[in-house]
């Protein structure tokens, strides 16, 4: 900066300190609660005095849940859904931004609508779809008894995705945030990029793979990390679509820590917080380590 900015910088420092304190305070509270025993907690409710049960709580979480296996599941599901979403976002955004046909506007609108309505609101119908993905094919084929008159019996294809990695990950991909971000990124690229590539003799697909993909490495990587964490903390869909404990994700697996007598039992918050720490560690470390990459990746054009 050019002029004397000390007072501005002081203000900025103070603001950032306040922001960090605001973000850290709840996390500190989580750690303190995780150090207490259930007995302490029943007597004192939440308190800010650290206890000595942290290791004991961790051990108990380890015993009560299938954490190692479920962490692996979380990893697979979060990775698959994030990778899938990045891929879909990239190709769709390319189609929407770089092509002339006007119908691409409708494609974009169709994708955007999915941002506003979360899967959580449609769990019941989504479950039915996942239970038999061939349902729409059957419905069309059997329309007006068509299939039956032709082949003697109504078409009844079955493809059940419930309790599989695909069934957990693919529905999480049906959400257009990634596409929105990639579209916004492509729009800031120099206008003549595609033209120059064509002059060099590159086909549209070649341009996409050889020029656009390397250019988008940064944003895609940031997007991937963001979506990976989104898949990691997803709750409602894995809970509903996965029924066997050894296929379940770690975040959902923590429900095993509820004491479970319905509303009359007081939840074991220290244990739950210890569990929360154990499943949060991986995404937190991921964020802390890749923070630079995330920021750099999302910078649209270099200074």
């Amino acid at each position, binding site marked *: 900066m050019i002029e004397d900015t000390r007072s501005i910088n002081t203000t900025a420092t103070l603001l950032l300190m306040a922001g960090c304190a605001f973000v850290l305070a709840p996390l500190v509270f989580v750690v303190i609660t995780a150090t207490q025993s259930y007995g302490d907690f*029943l007597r004192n409710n939440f308190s800010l005095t650290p206890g000595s049960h942290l290791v004991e709580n961790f051990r108990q979480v380890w015993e009560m849940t299938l954490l190692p296996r479920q962490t692996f599941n979380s990893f697979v599901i979060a990775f698959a859904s994030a990778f899938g979403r990045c891929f879909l976002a990239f190709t769709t955004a390319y189609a929407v931004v770089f092509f002339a046909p006007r119908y691409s506007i409708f494609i974009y609108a169709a994708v955007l609508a999915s941002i506003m309505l979360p899967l959580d609101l449609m769990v019941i119908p989504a479950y*039915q779809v996942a239970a038999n993905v061939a349902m729409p094919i059957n419905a069309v084929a059997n329309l007006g008894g068509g299939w039956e008159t032709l082949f003697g019996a109504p078409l009844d294809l079955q493809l059940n995705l419930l309790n599989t990695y695909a069934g957990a990950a693919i529905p999480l991909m049906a959400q257009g945030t990634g596409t929105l971000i990639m579209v916004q990124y492509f729009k800031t690229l120099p206008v003549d990029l595609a033209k120059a590539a064509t002059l060099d003799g590159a086909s549209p697909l070649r341009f996409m793979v050889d020029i656009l993909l390397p250019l988008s490495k940064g944003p895609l990587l940031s997007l991937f990390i963001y979506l990976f964490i989104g898949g990691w903390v997803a709750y409602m869909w894995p809970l509903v679509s996965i029924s066997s404990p050894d296929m379940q994700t770690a975040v*959902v697996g923590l429900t*095993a*820590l509820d004491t479970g*007598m*319905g509303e009359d039992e*007081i939840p074991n918050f220290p244990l739950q917080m210890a569990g929360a720490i154990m499943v949060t560690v991986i995404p937190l470390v991921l964020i802390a380590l890749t923070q630079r990459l995330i920021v750099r990746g999302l910078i649209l054009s270099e200074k």
Partner: protein
Amino acid sequence: MKLLKIAASALMLSTAATAVNAAQFEFWYGNTGSVETAIQAACDAFNASQEEHTANCIGQGGYEAGMQKAIAAYRSGKHPVLIQFFDAGTLDLMLSDAVVPVQEIMPEVNWGDYLTGARSYYETSKGELFSQPYNGSTLIFYANMEQLGEVGVKDVPATYEEMVEVARKLKEAGHECPVTTDAHPWRVLEQFSARHGAPIASNNNGYGGLDAEYIFNEGPVADHLNNLAQWREEGLLKLNQDTKAGKYNVAFNQGECAMMEASTGSYRSAFEALGDKVEIAMAPMYEGVERRNTLIGGASLWVMKGHEGEKLEAAKAFLNYLRQDDVQIEFTRMTGYMPVTQSALTKLKDSGKAEMKEFATAEMGVNSLNQPGDANSRGLRLGFYVQFRDIFMEGTQKAFNGGQTMQAALDAAKARGDALLRRFEQTYRGVELP
């Protein structure tokens, strides 16, 4: 020769595979935590006790999630043989045409052994049990005798009049929270009206047909809620939001409040926190009203339609296994739920274990369930009842917080509840209440 061997082994493989498939059945349950551990233990024990059948017990992470999955699974034909549902879902299941009554498929069982309060809640109008009661709880009264002793009270109050008297003494002695409740309809509406023999809705709470209407807004329930509001004004009673702890049972456990009405399931944590200071009794009555049974809370086991042969036989064997006295007693020990049959209770008493902390609520709770019943203490057959609970809670809380009078809240809840009942009636048009 070689060919024969292969054929033979292939045959063996296939028979082995069918044997495994036929004898294996799925059971979905909703509980988590210690109850889940107990259910899994029961499953393992069942599988170890015989070789014919294998129970595959799958936790669904909650009653609600379990019910949703069962609904979706049933619609796509992937439902389990056996499923556990919580009390408030009873009517939905009875009318669903997705389950078969246990008494119908297992007529040989002595169903009369089940406790009155447990049976009436889950039986048809003809007295046939629709589901097998499993984890049962009910409402009882808790007192912190150390605090009551400080004002010279030695016995847990048995009536509301006594309770108020004790509460006034406590308040005069400087106690800030003599009584606490969350005023949840399970406590102040369902259990209250059942044991006072007062109706919540016409048609004997819906047992007489789906055209019932809510009538709780006049009579004992309305009086009781007005009393609660008045006691709160007077400083005798605190609701969740008035307590430091934020939840009535936490407030009781921490010694902030001296008395509460709560489920038998609350005993474990209360005992853990307060030890011998806790004493329990049946939930209080208003003077001059004859005591009826309280209702069973918790959940029961339902057999779903569309399964037959060995799978069904396996599920039946599992239900029979769970009914055994020792299995029930072990489940009670691990969870704090009550035994649900007379014989299991007798066996528990005879064993001398009934005094132990793990079993302390069993006798009291069973006693409460076994009080003489009448037409209004059987249970509820009211449509969209879970939604109605929210409506009731919303309105009465507004009244407690001063947004409207209690009577206006009850009248409005009745009107909205009736609209739900009518829509439910229309949804199940042409379906006979079993």
